């Protein structure tokens, strides 16, 4: 039937690569190659930038549907220049934003960064024929961009984590709207419960006024375009999973059901995809940290992640 999508080999969940048991870093790439900064280095850079951010140079920030001006915004730099140098493939771009409210275990835009990027792009290039843009040293490339950055328009895929804490200036809202309407795709992940949902959706209403949020039906072809995803996985942060003894809903009954919701334009194209009450990116980020966590969550996380990436690249 025209207009429908089908897949010949909606195969099993990706289980090809075994994780490094108990290792601190994911097993996707050799340790020396993949690790760019240590966590300490990251923290040092973050602390330095946070100090710089305390200076009264921050712009107005909007959140929760009402405009909240915050004189100083906590912003962390990714420490990488713009887009990867080597073109010709997929680039994972992450939205950098000002965090204007706090969520439990949330770290703002840098939640799951950068290991989620490394691992997903590496798995993407291993499990599918997708080429990934990279750096000159051969490592898979990704970028962290503000919504006002013109470079954002060179990256049709945008990922945002911990969106329950997002604050965007008027220019950023405008930039994001134009980005999405021109053909960009935004995946909002890792926000739990009603309060985060309300915060994020009120912001979305400003970005894309008039467009409805709808549930992605379980038989939607996105869920089978490469791998057959039977159910939306609920993936908690590894800390919560460990602390709770294996529970998955970070807010208990308030976040019991993971959902995939989307916003489409009038042509049916998905502009925004939201994975609510789940932290899909943790399934990529923590691949190499804990075998139990990997075995339980990562295959589902990769299956859904790859499906979403392939879908957005073909639609």
């Amino acid at each position, binding site marked *: 039937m025209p207009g429908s999508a*089908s897949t010949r*080999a909606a195969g099993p969940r990706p289980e090809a690569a075994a994780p490094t048991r108990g290792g601190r870093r994911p097993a996707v790439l050799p340790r020396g190659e993949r690790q760019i900064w240590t966590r300490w280095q990251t923290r040092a850079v973050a602390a330095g930038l946070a100090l710089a951010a305390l200076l009264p140079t921050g712009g107005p920030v909007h959140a929760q549907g009402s405009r909240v001006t915050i004189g100083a915004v906590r912003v962390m730099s990714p420490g990488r220049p713009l887009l990867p140098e080597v073109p010709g493939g997929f680039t994972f771009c992450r939205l950098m934003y000002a965090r204007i409210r706090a969520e439990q275990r949330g770290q703002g835009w840098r939640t799951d960064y950068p290991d989620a990027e490394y691992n997903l792009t590496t798995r993407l290039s291993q499990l599918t024929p997708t080429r990934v843009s990279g750096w000159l040293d051969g490592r898979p490339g990704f970028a962290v961009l503000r919504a006002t950055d013109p470079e954002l328009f060179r990256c049709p895929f945008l990922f945002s984590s911990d969106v329950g804490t997002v604050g965007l200036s008027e220019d950023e809202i405008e930039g994001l709207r134009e980005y999405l309407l021109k053909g960009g795709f935004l995946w909002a992940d890792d926000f739990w419960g009603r309060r985060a949902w309300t915060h994020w959706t009120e912001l979305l209403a400003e970005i894309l006024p008039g467009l409805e949020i709808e549930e992605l039906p379980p038989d939607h072809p996105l869920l089978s375009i490469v791998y057959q995803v039977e159910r939306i996985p609920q993936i908690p942060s590894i800390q919560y999973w460990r602390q709770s003894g294996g529970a998955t809903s970070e807010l208990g009954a308030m976040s019991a059901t993971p959902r995939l919701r989307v916003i489409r334009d009038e042509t049916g194209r998905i502009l925004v995809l939201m994975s609510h009450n789940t932290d899909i990116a943790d399934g990529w980020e923590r691949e190499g940290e804990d075998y139990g966590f990997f075995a339980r969550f990562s295959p589902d996380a990769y299956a859904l992640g790859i499906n979403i990436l392939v879908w957005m690249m073909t639609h």
Partner: protein
Amino acid sequence: MFDNVFEYLFKYPQVAYERGEIIWSGSWPPLLLLGVFVAGAGLVYASYRWGRARTLVAATWTLVLLRAAGLAVLLVCLLRPTLVLSTAVPQQNVAAVIIDDSRSMEIPDEESRPRAEVARELFASEESALLESVSERFMVRHFRFSALAERLRDSGELDASGTRSLIGPALDFVRQELATLPLSGIVLVTDGGDQDPEALEDALLGLRAEGIPVHAVGVGRESLDPEVEIERVEIPRTVIQGSTVIADVVVAHTGLGGVTVPVNLEESGSILATEEVELTGRTGSATVRIPFSLDDPGVRNLRIRVPAQEGEVVEENNARDIHVEVRDGREKILYYEGQPRFEVGFLRQAVREDQNLQVVVLQRTGEDRFVRLDVDSGDELSGGFPSTREELFEYRALILGSVEASSFTPDQLRMIVDFVDRRGGSLLVLGGPAALAEGGFAGTALAPLFPIEIAPPFGEVEGTEDFWATLRLLPTRSGMTHPALSLAEEGAEEEEENPGGDEGEAEGGVTPWEELPPLTTVNLVGESRPGATVLLEGEVQEVFGTRAGPDFAERASPVFAFQRYGAGLSAVLAVHDTWLWQMHADIPLEDETHERFWQQVLRWMVQEVPEPLEAAAAETRVAPAQPVELVARVSSEEFLPVNDAQVTARIIDPFGAEEELALTWDLDRDGEYRGSFLPAVDGPYEVEVSALDGERALAAPPLHIQAGVLDEELQSGAMRGNLLRRIASETNGQFYTVGELDRLPEALRYTDRGTVVQEERDLWDLPLFFFLLMALLFAEWVVRRQLGLA
């Protein structure tokens, strides 16, 4: 004037000398006359040199020469030159007068009188002095012709209503009609408009063989000034609904140099598109390209027209009618992409609203795993890339994305070649890390299809990590006016000045090429092939890697090029991120450059892809009594010619009456069937051609043929003197304009054909000799007087 002087001096008209032969009839022995001449000349010399009044040497020789020349003239007369002529015996021979009775004879350019009126007065009127003069010696038979020739019984039958002028068949008709009579010559009275040059050549052969002279009388002016006409129009016969197509129009003119005229494309009197063209020189032609689009399906009767210019004599040739069939249907295109990438999604989105394009995507997602998008059935492409020709030939165009050569079997590669070469499909190869040379296509069966050299001589091509470049794509001269790159909406005001695009600020507009963001290539390509057309060239902005060589940044690389290959075409677009023309920060949200680019490119690719049954008429407009020639080509599912099909044409006349015509296989051409019919009445005919190839029934889109008066007759309205001169000279006749006709009766008289007699006419008494002798003697007298000798 010249003719009168000639005839006065030489006693007979020039034509008599051309037809006759000069002999010497004198009875004096030539040697004796020579001796007399030498002796006479010597005597003159002696008398001047040594006579009573001696003169200077130089003067002596002058006087001797003058006297000797006079003596020579007298001796020539004594030799008695005689003109021998073959002349028609009075009233024993026939002269045929054949008068053009077509519409072009209505043009009022014979001193503001219609050509037909002048021709009638001179050759068909009872009061005609010319005709009377001819009739004195000949029995005159009158004919008229346009598309057909016939005897003219009364001058009133001449009404200048013929819709075509066929000179060749008319001359043949006269020759055959008078074959049993002593035909001395044919007088062809016409403006030279002829619509069947081949038939004319055949007729001239016959006339030459029988030695029948044709005296061509050109009626009208050889140059109409000022005059502008639509000389030629080229346009696709069928177009896809809503596509921008280009009409190539050649506008010819005389005397309108420096004038800018509009060229309109009209339908039912309303202007669909217009372009201006500046005419140059005293006379000449200019080409103008008119982009336009048609939305409603069906046969559209269009007219290309230049408004009448002040003082123009013939306005009818300012317009040409054309027929275009607008197709409404979804054209299937297979896009095979080897790796998930943004280009796929953006391309699909660009053509999503185009109801005439169905881009079926076969996206590889893993080893032997594919995603199929926009397929018609669950079976379609279920095995991946087509493995049979029947399956592949279902599509009209094939796009190969970043997919390496090794993913195809050798047979699949040959299938793709056959798809283009035999099936007539279009192939577009996109750039990408696994495309072209980087995808290992150099040396494969597919490589000759590429319009660009893909195995560049400047380095290794394995791997892609060490080369990429950003290029600003700019149209070449060919690209500027190519329909694939005609991005602006037709009718937009800006489009007139910038066919490549209008201002980007306008809602739904397109961005000019030079303002579009640069794109990226990871494919190192060489020069375009000799037969290829480059539409877009890349101006290098940034280059990385040493593979390209030091001069890479200096040269413009072909980026989008195509070439004809067999029955189809093959194109390369060697960039991999045209989606930037949609997404880039500098591109306004409402901008439609990306959409228009892909819609135009894909529509252009599928526009003229043949079907298994193709039917065509040699002419879609025919004059009354002009047969319609039909030709059909039948191919198998693998697009091999089929010679044993039953091909039938159902002809529906303007009143709805149907008739069936069986088309027969042309023994000389595989898969080709022919037939013809003669429209009985004027009006629109519809012809439905169908074929039965075994169990397979095929039907071609209906042909629409208009029978009736054609405007062709008035194209090139000036009298074609050169053609008439050629007709006359090839048949040993003469060419005359209306003002020169007093020579005609004499010219008709001197003929070798018919009942003739040989006439000998003395030339010794030519006034020329007398005047010459007088002039020589006078000159001698003047010299002598100067010397004091007279």
